[in-house]
């Protein structure tokens, strides 16, 4: 056994590994160029993956889809009821905004982009907009439905890396819509997130919307009340899916 390992010709391997470490000096350039070369193939695979996923889900999730449809029908009825109430508030809100001269929340400078690759080891994606498009580190990224999906991480010349809110590195302050309850939304990886540091006396229900500013994040899936811990926690079901990452908007800056 030992002879087997002693016979390994180690020098070429050591040179190869050192060369790989040397690439760190040009990390942005190397990664940017490889992404540029790979992007047509990645786009094709991304679309093929979406279609395959749709096709497979027809078989695998027919029962789940039926239940989901029923749940969404009930939610739609609730939304219609709420909408009628909110229309009354809208007129009031408009006049208040004019009076207070508050900038419209949806007046963002947006850059349209699309994703075609996901990090293999963590919840982050590659998008086709980079430094040449005016992208900077920390810009928020949303879907068409104004669901916050994350923020820009590393920026390359033509591409950027977006750290999703479900990434384990992601932490942001979030609120429960319509209530004064706030907490910290921490990414758990694998498209999961948890809302922590919620005061014990907060009234929290399953289905409550979790927001950050004017952007929606998800819904409370399960409230965790552990007697040992001084705060409440809640599992949050994020509202974006892999398929939503195809068309995204990067918020450049509020106007």
């Amino acid at each position: 056994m030992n002879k087997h390992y002693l016979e390994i010709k180690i020098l070429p391997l050591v040179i190869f590994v050192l060369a790989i470490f040397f690439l760190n000096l040009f990390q942005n350039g190397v990664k940017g160029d490889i992404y540029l070369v790979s992007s047509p193939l990645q786009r094709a695979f991304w679309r093929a993956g979406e279609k395959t996923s749709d096709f497979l889900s027809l078989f695998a999730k027919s029962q789940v889809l039926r239940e989901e449809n029923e749940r969404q029908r009930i939610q739609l009825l609730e939304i219609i009821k709420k909408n009628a109430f909110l229309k009354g508030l809208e007129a009031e809100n408009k006049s208040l905004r004019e009076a207070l001269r508050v900038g419209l929340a949806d007046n963002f400078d947006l850059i349209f982009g699309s994703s075609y690759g996901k990090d293999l080891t963590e919840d982050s994606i590659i998008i086709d907009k980079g430094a040449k498009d005016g992208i900077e580190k920390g810009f928020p990224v949303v879907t068409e439905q104004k669901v916050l999906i994350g923020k820009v991480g590393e920026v390359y010349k033509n591409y950027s890396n977006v750290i999703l809110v479900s990434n384990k590195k992601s932490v942001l302050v979030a609120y429960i819509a319509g209530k004064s309850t706030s907490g910290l939304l921490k990414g758990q990886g694998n498209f999961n997130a948890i809302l922590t540091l919620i005061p014990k006396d907060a009234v929290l229900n399953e289905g409550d919307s979790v927001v950050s500013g004017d952007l929606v994040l998800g819904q409370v899936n399960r409230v965790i009340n552990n007697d040992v811990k001084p705060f409440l926690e809640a599992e949050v079901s994020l509202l974006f899916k892999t398929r939503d990452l195809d068309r995204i908007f990067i918020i450049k800056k509020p106007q």
Partner: protein
Amino acid sequence: MIKNIVLLTIFFYFLSIFQSSFFIHIEWIGAFPLLTLIFLVAILFLNRKKIELGLFGAAIAGLFLDLFSAKPFGFHVLLFLFFALLVNFVFLKYVRVFS
């Protein structure tokens, strides 16, 4: 040997692209299969008597994993090299193949 390394590089490049763009849509019980690791184990098994090729395979697979992730170059390379040595040790010591 050089021919095999070139072939491994091409193979892991396409596999990484396929994994990061196609397979992330195919979720199974809340997880995505890491094809790179699965094929690396297969290569290590098939070349258990000639570990050099397996080690080069591990370094190349790690390189592409670093390339398509936010980690610095070398992180997955070292991780996979240790993994390859461990797997090779297990294959030689505990796995017997009858032919």
